């Protein structure tokens, strides 16, 4: 694997310097907003991928069944046997949609957890910048927002490893107890 070449121009350095000068509160707010925006986009892309996958899978399955029905009229000649063997092979590879669907659902869960962290971060920053209010002291409000951030982080950390270990559609192992 080759290393990625990173070019640094003066505008970027200046941008980094500008960022360094930002106060912590503003920086965290900016991180939260950027994360939020990208997570929303990623969530939508994953959803779109799920829709496309479901549609394509349905079409593939319908085509598969149509080919199988057509096979019934072919009799038992050499061509029919070859078609049947190909259909059987396809029945293994068509299972990809289950594996991919699970991977997409896992990724969506992670993105959603990250989205929640970004939202909580933004709320915390808003609370940090809010003026003192007699009815609801800022310290209590801040503690509440920090707790919400922590809860969201715990939920993010709880996103477990994926159960899907397959990297291809090779048949899995069979074990009889």
């Amino acid at each position, binding site marked *: 694997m080759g290393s990625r070449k990173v070019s640094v121009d003066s505008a970027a350095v200046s941008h980094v310097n500008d960022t360094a000068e930002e106060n912590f509160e503003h920086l965290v707010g900016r991180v939260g907003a950027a994360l939020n925006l990208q997570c929303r986009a990623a969530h939508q892309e994953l959803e779109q991928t799920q829709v496309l996958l479901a549609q394509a899978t349905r079409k593939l399955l319908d085509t598969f069944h149509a080919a199988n029905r057509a096979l019934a009229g072919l009799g038992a000649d050499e061509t029919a046997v070859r078609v049947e063997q190909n259909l059987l092979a396809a*029945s293994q590879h068509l*299972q990809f949609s*289950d*594996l991919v669907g699970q991977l997409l659902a896992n990724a969506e869960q992670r993105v959603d957890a990250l989205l929640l962290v970004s939202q909580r971060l933004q709320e915390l920053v808003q609370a940090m910048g809010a003026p003192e209010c007699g009815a609801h002291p800022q310290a209590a409000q801040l503690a509440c927002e920090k707790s919400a951030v922590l809860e969201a982080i715990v939920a993010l950390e709880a996103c477990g490893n994926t*159960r899907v270990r397959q990297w291809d559609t090779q048949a*899995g192992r069979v074990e009889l107890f």
Partner: protein
Amino acid sequence: MKKLVLTVDDSTAIREMLAYVLKSAGHRVIEAEDGMDGLQKALANQVDLVITDQSMPKMDGITLVKALRALPQYQRVPILLLTTESSDSMKEEGRSAGATGWLVKPFDPNKLIEVVEKVTR
């Protein structure tokens, strides 16, 4: 001898491919889309074999295996878990629950027929 097989999976593709392969070998198939649906269909029809996924909404596969094994009419019926999961701990959980075997997705159609013949003999 041809058997009545109950397949339980929340994935349409898996259910349809299982049905295709099993029917092509002459078996009859009943489909269920989650563990709860599977349990209800197993109660309504005495099947000769159950092939179930593990991770499903409403009721997972291992819970289904336990529920079926608690029924006198399903104590000796083979139950295969067909899942993407392959961890040893999960397999052990399946074995302890009373599963007959563990198949990792995707399944090889010829191997599946071989296993079905073997466990229902």
